[in-house]
């Protein structure tokens, strides 16, 4: 299925969870420091391996960067 991750199109297995999508993109989904929003809502870390992500979802995957 197609989703958008940080503004770029991505092809992921149908029904993939957030954790699976993160792993497929080379991120450590257990690692502290990442946060995920889907369609403008926070997806809490504890639910990353649970709910399947819907096709067409817009994911934002964020991390701490220099700033402030």
């Amino acid at each position, binding site marked *: 299925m197609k989703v958008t991750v940080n503004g770029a199109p991505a092809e992921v297995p149908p029904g993939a969870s957030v954790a699976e999508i993160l792993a497929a993109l080379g991120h450590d989904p257990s690692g502290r420091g990442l946060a995920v929003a889907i369609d403008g809502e*926070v997806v809490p870390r504890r639910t990353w391996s649970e709910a399947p992500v819907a096709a067409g979802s817009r994911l934002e995957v964020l991390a701490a960067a220099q700033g402030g």
Partner: protein
Amino acid sequence: MDDPLVIAGESFSSRLILGTGGAPSLESLGRALAASGAEMATVALRRVSPDARGSVLSVIEGAGCRVLPNTAGCFTARDAVLTARLARDALETSWIKLEVIGDDRTLLPDPAELLDAAETLVAEGFVVLPYANDDPVLARRLEDAGCAAVMPAGSPIGSGMGIANPYNLRLVTEGAGVPVILDAGVGTASDAAIAMEIGCDGVLAASAITRARDPVAMAEAVRRAVEAGRLARRAGRIPRRLYAHASSPAEGLADL
């Protein structure tokens, strides 16, 4: 620690907070952080970069500092609240340096959106440190909303113009029941000293240090300035006078 800065029950022996934006490299940031003596450093939340080398988090936490995420880049209360929630999920801290910008050119805060976001985040259990205008009325409103500190701008972010309105800053500090941290505008060490002499409880400096020609030396200079300003504030300065007030006695003057 005989004169700690206490924010939301947490004690800090350093009154300088380092903003990490603008450092040319993580190595430079690490050295400046050590030289600054800061016990808290800010981070922004941005799209993760797959090819990122090293992490700002490991630099800050490796130095034993508390990470203070910010909501930099947000122009609405909605975006700032969402960013704060994401920061809490990513970094396991409920502390947030709340920024809601109202103007592209000056990056000054939008007071209405700021207060709105602060109220929401306080209700959600966040420890809110709002980047605010140097307005004593807004500072009071933010404190009344439950913010743990107020962080007035001395002048626009990255401008290095120092404290544009010392009178307003003084009114903010006099009226505040929570710590006042000068945020934005510091250009060099003396600006930090002046902020502390006016009565601020702490100073946040980013560009002044990270973009200095020698960030490590400037970090040390600002650290010492914050300490000197604090000491001077507590020591009690003499009043300004229009005319001289002789320091040598007139009595016993020789008739030559």
